[in-house]
């Protein structure tokens, strides 16, 4: 298993993170934004798991933290979807551009 270098895994997670970030900035659909957030979270999870495996193989705190983040992300997704449904009911749209009343 050790023939895959750490740098490669980090490269994948960095790529995932910036793909998510790109999605956050460019997409207007709130569901897509939520998916982008999930991508960014998962890139962090990959980082945690990889560092745990390569630097401290006898411990597993990093893996547990990754699991914890997955759980929190599930809860967050539930809340976010509830918000999106409510937004749709009031605005007939889930476009972020349409929900910009909260300004100066």
């Amino acid at each position, binding site marked *: 298993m050790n023939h895959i270098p750490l740098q490669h895994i980090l490269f994948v997670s960095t790529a995932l993170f910036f793909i998510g970030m790109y999605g956050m900035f460019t997409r207007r659909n709130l569901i897509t934004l939520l998916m982008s957030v999930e991508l960014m979270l998962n890139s962090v999870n990959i980082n945690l798991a990889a560092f745990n495996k390569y630097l401290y193989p006898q411990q597993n705190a990093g893996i547990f933290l990754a699991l914890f983040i997955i759980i929190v992300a599930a809860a967050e997704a539930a809340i976010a979807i509830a918000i999106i449904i409510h937004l749709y009911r009031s605005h007939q749209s889930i476009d*972020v551009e349409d929900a910009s009343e909260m300004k100066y």
Partner: protein
Amino acid sequence: MLNLTYILIILLLPFGNFLLLGIGSRKISQPFSGWLATLSLLVAASFSLLIAYEYFVVTGPNNGIYPSIELFRYPWLVFGTKLTIEMSWVLDSLTVMMLVVVTLISAMVHLFSLGYMKGEGRYTTYYAFLGLFTFSMLGLILAGNLFQIYIFWELVGVSSFLLIGYYFTKPTAIAAAKKAFIVTRFADLGFLMGILIISFYGETLDIATLIERLTNTTTAQSMAIQTAQWMGISALTWGLAMLFIGGAGKSAMFPLHIWLPDAMEGPTPVSALIHAATMVVAGVYLVARLFPVFQLSESILQLVTYTGIFSAFFAAIIACTQTDIKRVLAYSTMSQIGYMMFSLGIARGDDQYLGYTASLFHLFTHAFFKSLLFLGAGAVIHLIHSNEIDKMGGLRKYMPITHISFLIACLAIAGIFPFAGFFSKEEILLATYHANRPVFVMALITSALTAFYMFRLYFSIFWGKSQPTDPHHTEGTATMKIPLIVLMLCTIVVGFLPFSAWVFQGGSPLASHIDWKFSLIPLTLSGVGIVLAAYFYRKPSDRASEWALVFGGIYRAASNKFYIDEIYRWITQQILFPLVGKPFAWFDKHIIDGTVNGVGTFVGSIYYFIRGMQSGKLQDYLFYFLAGIAAWMIFFFYIWK
């Protein structure tokens, strides 16, 4: 037994009226509020009479001197070892006399107002203001501390302002209220400066301590105030002059008298209470209260004397020409207060302190007959609905009680035996005769003028041609007649009180003496004044206007009040406004407002710059968030290390 409880009740009853009726002015119905206030004032008045009886008759003098009783003392403001302001209530013979005057006149005015103000709007508020005034005036006379006097001094000024402007829909009433407030406030500035100068050198504000320190020439304070000089005049003289300016403003002495005639815009009972009997004599009271200190400065006593006599004479001349019944009475008040002032001013020399007693005696008697005159005038105005004497005439048939009481009050003010004014005026004239002959001559002439203008008023109202009046109108309710009768009886009786044995200055009381040979001249002069008035005004004729033509310019000047108002207007509008007001207004508008507005504009411009960040767009916020994190990371990794 004299005790604090009576005084407290007397003080708190009017104050309670003010609070209750002021707060509940919309809830408490019309006759009830008036009766409540009137009854409580009647209780206060009877307590005052009780106190006076116990103080003067039951307790009596101790070693020939009436004791000064300190009822209460509380250190109110402690500024340090040198300056402490202590609230104290002090009862001495002067205070007891004033207590009786204030509560009795106030009770009568409350009672009279029940009929006079019936049906007026803001009836309950009117009684609340009367309560405030009575409370403040009582506080003023009971105060044992200069600072406390100043507080109540301003409070009576405020209540006077409120009551003059009672008919606040009338522009003239508003103008008069503002004029009274501004003129007296201007004078009070002098009063405050006087208090500060005197208390700075005396190192206390307590009146008894102050008098004790300053009259004893060996104390450090006395030496300091006598030696400290500014522009060649000692600090004592400056301080007293400033105090006197305050007193002169409140007591309508020339040239600060201009507010008093205009103050007649208020309801007539208010004029009777405030602008005839009580508040306007506050200046006299102040000088009397601090008389031992005033006595230390000969020049200030001269100032008091000549201001007093000039005001008395000046006002008497104007009073002869005015046609507004209340204005005549206002000028007559000013004239009589002038009497009290100069009588205080001449109180020294061989006939020690007779002037002092005479002045306060005149204050006492004047309160009764002048408030009687005003209430009588109020009854007349209530019937005629006008202040102009041209519209009146022949009223003696319609209002017999008013007629009799007005006649007696006129006789009293003219100084005819046996009414109250005779005794006090004779004492003033006697004291003046011994002290200062020129002033005495002026006082005699003024006394004759007084008789003339009062009887001019009397004959014009009650004699002369009969005016058609509405048969439905009668003299007024019983509540309007009773005060007239009570005050009329007082006017007849109070002259016989042994006043000079009660209120005096110096170690021993003075014998009250009526010198008939001396009284002959003033009585004759007053008689001449009355006969002249009868000649001119008893029957409708052209005699008065013919004689007015003879006097020509003087008459016109007097009927225009010697153009004092115009002079004031010229000074304020041509000198004060452009030379002082305008620069200050410019400074205020451009420097002070400019600074404040500049700060506002600066903050506003920052707001315009940064408010775009609050766009409401989710992705903008995300961008700021990530940019912030990136900035922090750069900072921590590359700069801070």
